[in-house]
């Protein structure tokens, strides 16, 4: 049984690719066979975040257009045995991606026994975003606690509920999960930032993860190592929790409260 999960948001720069890479790694580390696919045609970036940019020979569009086999295009991760990356093409032709082509690739991955297909959606609501979500069983909606991101993700929820295969067939629709990134418990406590509860209430979604704001995300992308693999980081722990919840485990939320300050720290500032 293969599960197709789209990582989407509407707004750009909120952490879709970072999240796709970390969730894919987290699932694969648990022994699942995972393919993570970059749907951002023309603006390939998942390869950089995964650290395999120099190993891209063939891409998603090459496979769809029959210029190579899927096996040739799947890049096997050097760290985790069961993880594979399919890069986006750098072509400017947006029509290179077709629904029929995507379905063929998915069918082949399913026949090959993959447990998960993670679709890294491009920003926006154009064709790439549409195709990334169309075949999905579940959606991880990545949101920053900020007005434009929340509003855009609500647009995406509307599309998930109408423009997907599951919605069209009427069999329960796509299961949606909320993943908050760049969360700052300190700013939430001072009333400067929307809280998890606020965003949850506005969008009406269950929370699959809250990832704290951290410099570790940039260091990880600089190095080409998905941030979940940096065991020292709270971001890694937050993504690990999110992966556990995706797999049906019940894990309490962490990193949502400001660490308690002592008496002197409160008086004199820290």
């Amino acid at each position, binding site marked *: 049984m293969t599960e197709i999960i789209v990582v989407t948001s509407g707004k750009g720069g909120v952490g879709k690719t970072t999240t796709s890479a970390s969730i894919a790694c987290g699932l694969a580390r648990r022994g699942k066979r995972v393919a993570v696919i970059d749907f951002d045609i023309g603006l390939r970036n998942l390869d950089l975040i995964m650290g395999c940019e120099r190993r891209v020979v063939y891409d998603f569009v090459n496979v769809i257009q029959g210029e190579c086999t899927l096996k040739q295009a799947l890049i096997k991760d050097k760290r985790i045995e069961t993880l594979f990356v399919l890069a986006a093409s750098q072509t400017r032709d947006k029509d290179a991606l077709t629904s029929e082509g995507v379905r063929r690739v998915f069918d082949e991955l399913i026949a090959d026994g993959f447990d998960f297909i993670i679709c890294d959606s491009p920003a926006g609501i154009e064709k790439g975003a549409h195709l990334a979500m169309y075949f999905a069983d579940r959606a991880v909606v990545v949101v920053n606690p*900020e*007005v434009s991101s*929340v*509003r855009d993700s*609500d*647009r995406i929820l*509307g599309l998930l509920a*109408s423009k997907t295969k599951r919605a069209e067939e009427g069999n329960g629709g796509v299961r949606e999960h909320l993943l908050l990134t760049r969360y700052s418990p300190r700013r*939430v406590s*001072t*009333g*400067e*930032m*929307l*809280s998890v509860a*606020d965003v949850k209430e*506005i*969008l009406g979604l269950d929370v699959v993860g809250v990832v704290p704001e951290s410099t570790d995300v940039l260091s990880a992308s600089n190095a080409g190592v998905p941030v979940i693999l940096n065991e020292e980081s709270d971001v890694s722990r937050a993504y690990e929790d999110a992966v556990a919840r995706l797999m049906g485990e019940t894990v309490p939320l962490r990193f949502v409260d400001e660490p308690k300050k002592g008496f002197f720290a*409160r*008086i*004199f*500032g*820290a």
Partner: protein
Amino acid sequence: MGLLALFRRTPPSASVAKERLRIIVAQERSARGSPDYMPLLRRELLEVIRKYVNVDPAAVQINVEREDGHEVLEFSVALPDKAR
């Protein structure tokens, strides 16, 4: 944040954000299921009305209500105090 912060009154901007989002999200969700011609219909109706009364675009509300089996198109215009 130290002693000074106690005296500095910063408005709780998150609650403003939440209120604005609640309204806009509810509005956009209600428009979601409505027919594609609605924005154009709204614009053209507005043009007709403005031939006679100078109304503000924001004063025009257009809604499709679904009541068991049939749809009702609801159109309301708040006229200015002094019609031109």
